[in-house]
């Protein structure tokens, strides 16, 4: 089943390019560490989901590019076409001359209705090219004007027009000390609208990604392109094909559906986060070896301590955190118990033998009281390695990790509003 990606705004388009590039390089990576037949099945599955075929053999990404100014979209289109390996469709781009000026209301109430027909037509054409549609993946940022305002509008329209298809919004949480003054307003408005019309919100925080680039990848001058590449790597490790049932050798057909069914069935808890391990620059990859026990221990540690990267700390002391219940508060309809999880899916790539290593994830203390680990915890595996990482694992979790950042944003927005 195919996924149609909608890239909105400057952020969305840049990230979208990196994501497709990561998916393509992975599926054509020569070091798959599995049999040829397996590799071909993997490639075919990845291609069916994200690319469509043209006569001369160059795969075309199933994506729409939308932006209110032409600079970024034209850059993205040309970068993809230049690589020669894959490209965007010729008529999949919609852009205007004038931007949204970081104004959410402008994006939502003015640009949205004005360009509704053209954008939905583009989406319709892309949907018709799919044999079967799994859902939409909408990439946007919360701080800007186009991504946030227009993104909220487009998601709402998709809800109306394709009510049976799934929608996952990928949101970029802005830097705490971000440049856009009204980013807090934009974020709150976006989130509240998306909560109603989207099925799942996959959140990536700029601060966390920046830290990963600085500490784990040892990049000195961190540009957005580096951050986007880390992000794309994480998304790729979640969306690439995995086996469908325990022990079977067929790949899952409906990645979005399965992910959502396991993680966001409850209508009030829709925010998801991703953690990925190992994360390092490709240069140091050649000199590192991993064991599953070690990797999964770090992953669990990252989960418990609510961090997005392996910090190399002694993980014993943090294990006690989850046992301290704090006072209950109600914020945005979430129940509070510190770092409690609702559900998670672990996706493991390559040659996993011992299920004992996963025992740490099945601890009831990690989860809320009304959900048992057997329902809340799922493992997806595949034999094929992801992008030269002989072993890698990703963790998608529905938890309270965004509670604090959300409180901060709400607080700042109120302060700004009250000070008028």
């Amino acid at each position, binding site marked *: 089943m195919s996924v149609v990606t909608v890239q909105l705004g400057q952020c969305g388009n840049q990230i979208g390019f990196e994501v497709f590039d990561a998916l393509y390089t992975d599926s054509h990576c020569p070091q798959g560490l599995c049999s040829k037949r397996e590799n071909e099945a993997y490639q075919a599955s990845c291609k069916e989901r994200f690319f469509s075929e043209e006569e001369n053999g160059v795969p075309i990404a199933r994506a729409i590019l939308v932006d209110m100014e032409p600079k970024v979209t034209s850059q993205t289109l040309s970068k993809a076409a230049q690589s020669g390996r894959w490209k965007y469709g010729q008529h999949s781009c919609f852009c205007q001359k004038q931007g949204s000026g970081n104004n959410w209301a402008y994006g939502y109430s003015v640009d949205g209705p004005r360009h509704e027909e053209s954008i939905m037509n583009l989406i319709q054409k892309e949907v018709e090219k799919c*044999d*079967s549609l799994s859902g939409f993946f909408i990439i946007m940022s919360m701080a800007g004007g186009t991504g946030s305002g227009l993104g909220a509008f487009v998601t709402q329209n998709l809800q109306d027009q394709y009510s049976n298809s*799934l929608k996952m919004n990928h949101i970029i949480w802005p830097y705490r000390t971000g440049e856009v003054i009204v980013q807090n307003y934009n974020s709150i408005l976006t989130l509240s609208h998306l909560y109603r019309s989207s099925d799942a919100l996959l959140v990536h925080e700029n601060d966390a990604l920046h830290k990963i680039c600085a500490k784990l990848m040892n990049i000195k001058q961190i540009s957005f392109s580096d951050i986007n590449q880390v992000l794309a790597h994480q998304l790729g490790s979640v969306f690439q094909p995995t086996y469908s049932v325990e022990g079977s050798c067929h790949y899952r057909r409906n990645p979005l559906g399965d992910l*959502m069914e396991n993680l966001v*069935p*409850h209508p009030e808890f829709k925010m998801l986060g991703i953690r990925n391990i190992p994360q390092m620059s490709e240069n140091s990859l050649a000199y590192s070896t991993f064991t599953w026990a070690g990797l999964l221990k770090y992953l669990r540690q990252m989960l418990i301590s609510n961090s997005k990267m392996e910090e190399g700390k002694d993980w014993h002391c943090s294990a006690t955190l989850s046992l301290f219940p704090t006072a209950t508060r109600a914020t945005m309809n979430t129940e509070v118990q510190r770092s409690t999880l609702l559900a998670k899916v672990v996706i493991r790539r390559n040659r996993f*033998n011992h299920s004992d290593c996963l025992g740490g994830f099945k601890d009831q203390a990690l989860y809320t009281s009304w*959900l*048992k680990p057997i329902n809340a915890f799922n493992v997806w595996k595949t034999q094929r390695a992801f992008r030269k990482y002989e072993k890698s694992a990703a963790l998608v979790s529905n938890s309270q990790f965004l509670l604090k950042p959300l409180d901060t944003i709400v607080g700042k927005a109120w302060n700004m509003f009250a000070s008028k």
Partner: protein
Amino acid sequence: MGRRRRRGGRGHAVGALPEAIAALSQTLPAGPSPEIFRRAKFDRPEAAPALWRLLFRVLSPPAAAGTRASPALGAQVRLVKSALCSQGYPRRVLARLPEDGSQGSRELLLALAWLLARGPLLEHLLAQTRVWLGDEIPLWQYEALASPGPPAPCQEADGPVDIRHLQWLMGTLRFRWRDLITSQQELCALLGKLLQRLESENTRLEAALQWRRRELVFWQWMDTVLGSCPLQTSPATFLPRDPASGPGELELVARELRGLHGELQGAVEPRRAAWEAKAGGWGPEWSAAQQATQEAVGRDLAALQRAWEQGGAPAQPHRPCRLVKRDARAVEGPGLRAAELTGALRIRESRLETALGQLQTRCRQELARLAGAEPGLIWILPPGR
């Protein structure tokens, strides 16, 4: 030019010939138009490439002809020539045709007729390109039938049920519902595609039937084509070499082979004797051990065979069978019933599992004994699955 046909006496047959050729070309994959056939009779050069392509498509293996882009005309020509030669095509003129595929349409027409006359070519081609409906399964793939789905998470309703849990379950249900709808839509789209392919296959099959009815006219016409060819000098069977010089060379080759055989024998014998001397140093114990293991293996195999046969498996040919839904009360026709088969297979599965368990324990015991016997030995286990 060819002889003029007498049109007077065969008025009705004249109209039948174009229809017969049209039916033939519709049945053949990549069939050229009847006009090409007519031109080929008069050996017109413009008809040649189309006939080369047709023969290539007919003679090449189905996988090569279907998926990849077709090779250049020169390569097609070479392949057609070698395929016809290997099938024993008698006319040597065809092998001498130029490789750019520009001449020899009459020869190609004769070759096509030869292939048609030899065997069930059309049926073979139709079977190659038939539409697979997906209602067949091989008999030995019983995993899909016998294995239950993933276990449903069961919750005992002890105490008050948390409403959040209910909301969670409702949400899961809703997602599955939407998944079902999407699958239904996909099913409809695929059924549409399948119907289109079935329609085109139907037209081809109807054309094949038409051809069968009007074949005779075609063969009468082919006689005239053959007649219009210039006479060949020696219509001998097609051999790559002049048979007159054959016997001498063959004798040479045979002698060389015999000499080689003798040399090998001479080299092998001393080596075998040396090996046996080394191995035979263990003497009578070795042969006794060998015999004992052979007997043990024989017993195990016999036991396995008995267990297999006791499963009462019906004689199953290992080929794909069609799944047919039948009324439960219907009279038993030919073929197996799914319920019986699953029952039999489950019994067999359980027997095999017990046998496997027994064998594994025996292996483990043996390994433990061997490991205990030699203290200095290190066992390196292969990486488990």
